[in-house]
């Protein structure tokens, strides 16, 4: 505990600050300012802590979080600062999984609730929903004991014609044994999205089993003779891999394949791209042109566009040409996960529902071994393994929700919340790098699943504009990927910089109104029933009626809680109060935070930086 600590505003040019007390707990860093407002930061969210040179007012400490929050403290005494710094370094770097928050987090669920929570998302059920197993596809037990591929799940779907020797042979010809398996099956087109890692082809190597495997996939699709093989890497990278005995499919060796590079950059490029973006967007007093050129130089939006373009290519191959597609990159757990999951999202409206999106993440990301632990740096490890691949996936989905505001059951808050928990290590879902590791950690016994918690509060994540009929089942969502359609995701990268967000949020207004409408509908039903009852009563039981009128308060007025608050004739107008920012000299329009939350009487919604009094 350190007192008299100052919290500086990140974008303030005037060193305006809040003074308060800093606490370190076992799991969180907590700052309570003089007006008793609390800022909680989970240790696992801390990406970097930096001690800046001593100033006259104290020792500055900058904490960067994985959810893009950046806090800037000034600690009066250097020794305290040094202590906090060291503690945070230790607390934010975990060496063992068992020390992660998820293992100590106790949400007061009993054991059966915990088990049920983990059963909420059932992938076998999901494959059944897609229509497999069927005449062409079957469940393979080849990897039941993780013998063929450690980073794949136990249960894999492959073409019926792919025998065990073919599977084994093919897996030996693929990086990390990640042989081609089913990721998504489109029942109307009978076409499949399959995924794998790169072939170990080098300059000339061949593998007959692998060739048979691809043929089997191709033949499992009765409606089209050819299939696509999408290498999601830039051609140059793929060619360079040949020198290391890896590479890509030679069209001459595989019959009826159409090979295609789509040019998504690797994890290292993505990491530095996001880093550049954050550097620019975090600059104080940023000019428009510096922002735009920084956005351009970072390449971030170019990468997001490349990912989405690849997904569109994939989805079109299936929906328009009825062709099956095999997707791979190098190891088949980063770009491949992005493209397969986004492709499926464009093809199947189920993944645009709240539950469906959970299933999609469980399937293409968690079960197929996207290395969440390495990519999100859950344990202290190789910084070169960190990469915002999943963030980029969420951003691609966000872009789609912006283009099709009525196609998704979930809203932006849902995406942000998932992002939050991918890094929080509070739930077991994203811990570890693959299913085998998760089983060894006994996550299902020792930790809780995130999904039931999100479902329990799904009201917060529902898109009030959602129209289930927007896009009938299995019709393709066709986004326009013209450059100007891609925007900087302010609510992700500046989620905690409230001064940058609209002061009145249309989103929360619509959310609240839509919520209120449901309540009002209930009220109307209730009132109508009462009136009906009244009318009935007045005819039949007169005595009772008289009895009731003698009561001082009419029954109806006591009924619904919503009701009592809505006594004024036009409650909507009173219900939503707009707020005002304030500022001082020379246009520091980012100074608003403190004043405006202080003046605010009621609910403050942090995500959107807008406070409103709700009814």
């Amino acid at each position, binding site marked *: 505990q350190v007192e008299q600590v100052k919290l500086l505003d990140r974008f303030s040019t005037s060193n305006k600050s809040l003074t308060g007390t800093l606490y370190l707990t076992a799991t969180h860093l907590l700052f309570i300012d003089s007006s008793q407002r609390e800022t909680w930061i989970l240790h696992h969210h801390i990406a970097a802590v930096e001690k800046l040179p001593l100033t006259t007012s104290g020792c500055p400490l900058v904490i960067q979080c994985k959810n893009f929050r950046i806090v800037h403290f000034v600690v009066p005494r250097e020794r305290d600062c040094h202590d906090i710094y060291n503690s945070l370094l230790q607390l934010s770097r975990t060496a063992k999984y068992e020390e992660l928050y998820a293992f100590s987090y106790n949400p007061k669920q009993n054991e059966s609730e915990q088990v049920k929570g983990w059963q909420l998302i059932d992938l076998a059920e999901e494959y059944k929903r897609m229509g497999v197993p069927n005449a062409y596809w079957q469940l393979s037990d080849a990897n039941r004991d993780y013998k063929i591929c450690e980073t794949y799940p136990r249960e894999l779907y492959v073409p019926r014609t792919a025998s065990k020797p073919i599977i084994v042979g093919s897996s030996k010809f693929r990086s990390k044994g990640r042989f081609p398996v089913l990721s998504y099956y489109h029942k109307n087109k009978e076409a499949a999205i399959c995924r794998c890692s790169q072939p170990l082809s080098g300059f000339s190597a061949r593998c007959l089993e692998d060739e048979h495997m691809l043929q089997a996939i191709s033949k499992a699709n009765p409606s089209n003779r050819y299939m696509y093989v999408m290498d999601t890497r830039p051609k140059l990278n793929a060619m360079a891999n040949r020198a290391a005995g890896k590479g890509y499919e030679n069209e001459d060796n595989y019959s009826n394949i159409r090979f295609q590079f789509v040019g998504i950059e690797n994890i290292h490029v993505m990491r530095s791209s996001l880093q550049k973006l954050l550097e620019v967007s975090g600059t104080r007093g940023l000019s428009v042109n510096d922002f735009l050129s920084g956005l351009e130089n970072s390449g971030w939006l170019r990468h997001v566009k490349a990912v989405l373009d690849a997904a569109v290519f994939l989805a079109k191959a299936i929906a328009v040409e009825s062709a099956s597609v095999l997707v791979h990159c190098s190891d088949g757990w980063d770009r491949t996960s992005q493209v397969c999951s986004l492709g499926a999202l464009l093809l199947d409206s189920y993944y645009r529902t709240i539950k469906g999106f959970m299933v999609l993440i469980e399937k293409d990301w968690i079960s197929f071994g996207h290395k969440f632990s390495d990519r999100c740096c859950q344990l202290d490890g190789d910084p070169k393994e960190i990469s915002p691949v999943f963030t980029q996936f969420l951003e691609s989905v966000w872009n789609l929700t912006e283009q099709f505001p009525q196609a998704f059951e979930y809203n932006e808050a849902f995406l942000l919340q998932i992002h939050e928990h991918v890094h929080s290590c509070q739930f077991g879902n994203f811990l570890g790098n693959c299913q085998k590791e998760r089983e060894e950690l006994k996550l299902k016994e020792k930790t809780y699943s995130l999904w039931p918690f999100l479902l329990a509060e799904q009201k917060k994540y529902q898109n009030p504009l959602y129209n289930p009929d927007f896009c009938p089942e299995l019709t393709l969502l066709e986004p326009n990927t013209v450059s100007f359609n891609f925007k900087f995701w302010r609510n992700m990268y500046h989620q905690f910089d409230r001064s940058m967000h609209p002061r009145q949020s249309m989103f929360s207004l619509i959310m609240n109104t839509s919520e209120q409408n449901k309540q009002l509908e209930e009220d109307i039903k209730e009132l109508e029933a009462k009136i009906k009852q009244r009318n009935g009563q007045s005819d039949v039981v007169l005595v009772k009626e008289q009895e009731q009128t003698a009561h001082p308060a009419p029954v109806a007025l006591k009924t619904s809680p919503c009701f009592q608050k809505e006594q004024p004739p036009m409650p909507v107008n009173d219900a939503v109060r707009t707020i005002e920012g304030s500022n001082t000299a020379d246009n520091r329009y980012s100074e*608003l935070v403190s004043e405006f939350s202080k003046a605010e009487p009621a609910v403050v919604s942090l995500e959107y930086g807008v406070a409103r009094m709700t009814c």
Partner: protein
Amino acid sequence: MEFAELIKTPRADNVVLHHPFHPPVEGTLCLTGHHLIFSSRRQDNAEELWLLHSNIDSIEKRFSGSLGTITIKCKDLRVIQLDIPGMEECLNIGSSIEALSTLDSVTLMYPFFYRPMFEVLEDGWSSFLLEQEFELLSSVTNEWRLSCINKEFSVCSSYPPVVIVPKSVDDEALRKVAQFRQGGRFPVLSYYHKKNGMAMLRSSQPLTGTNGRRCKEDEKLVNATLRSGRRGFIIDTRPLAVAQQARAKGGGFEQEVHYPQWRRIHKYIERFNILQESFIKLVEACNDQSHNMDRWLSKLEASNWLTHIKELLTAACLAAQCIDREGASVLVHGGEGTDSTLQVTSLAQIILDPRCRTIRGFEALVVREWLQAGHPFQQRCAQSAYSNGKQKWEAPVFLLFLECVWQIHRQFPCSFEFNEHFLILLFEHAYASQFGTFLGNNENERAKLKLPQKTMSLWSWVNRPEELDKFQNPLYEANSLVIWPSVAPQSLQLWEGVFLRWNRSSRFLEEAEEERMNIIKYNKELQAKVNALRRQLAQLETGE
């Protein structure tokens, strides 16, 4: 009729029209004095296009064999294409359109010929008189007076006949001040902040020249707006260097020695020709869909458009801040005081004055701060973003103002009574219209052209209930507070409703917007129903 001479070929058949979001359609093209009319002549669903010649910004002709193609670029940024069979017909039509869309004489413009098909409930020409504005002002303060010094436009040709000035300054003094300010634009009241009695004045630059001329009456006039012992702020929309250079040409700025109670701040807002260039570049960037991400972003950056937006918003916020936060009076001017000055004063009012965020209040603002204040609409809006680089006086000064309002609107979506369509409507009508409102460069010219007698006012049309309905923002709730927008680059956005309007389908966005409105509407219905039911129940209960 002289138009007949210009129309060499009044009609062409088998013309194919390509316009945004529609498949090509074949039909007949007709030219009239003011319109280009296309009709597909299909019985079932006659597809028609009526385009005002004055909306045409530029045309290009191309030939392949005997098929001619005319590409028409409109001032509202739409691009359409006509395939016309027959070389001669195409040439004739092309040159006719060119001639008709670049008529020199204002009196030949469509507003002088337009006969309204609607009943005029209220004559828009007299909807917003400064006298009414003054009446409102008099109810809260008696420090100001209405001066008719400019009745004959003799003191300042770009000012309206009446202006509001400090009571303590008489007309004689005003005459002297007018000679000290460029174009005779002496400081007048632009806005009075009721909350603290502070005033915003606007003028043109003082004619100090190289020898530091001064004008006691000018000093007295501006000082009359100050509370004793308080300072005021002069916001000069030019950088210091430019203001200094202006002295060589007889212009200049207020010297500290002569205006000791005033602090001068230079807040640079670009001049009109730079803005026009920026406008052209932005539209070019938006119209090319083949740009990859890097090229798009660098073109967007190179246009500088959003930089201008940010600068303008910042200057307006500064003015508003001086008035509301510092409790100081403000004088705004640039050089002539007809462009950047008006942008700043009108935007500051959007921020400060809740009345300006209503439909009628916004109309009054446009009339007061733009039309009556002498923004040269005819010069600035003669050409839009497709003008071929030979700019003279054109500049999107008014469009920039509208976009800034839109940016604030986005940040405060519940604080404006009007919606985005209203702003787009004003943009369109400023550039091409059947109404006389935006014709002429100032009130003097409008009076000479007898516009109020000879043309219809845009406000007469807009302010009828059936039109107003389209421009209502259902989220609106009167918000009496000052609204401070964020000017961080991350908070600013491209105005897609104008710049991407013809480049990508916004069907899904519009449907979503409609759904939002439905939710709000439904809410109101439910509220009403609940209230009715409650009354009914209460009656039942007490009625026994």
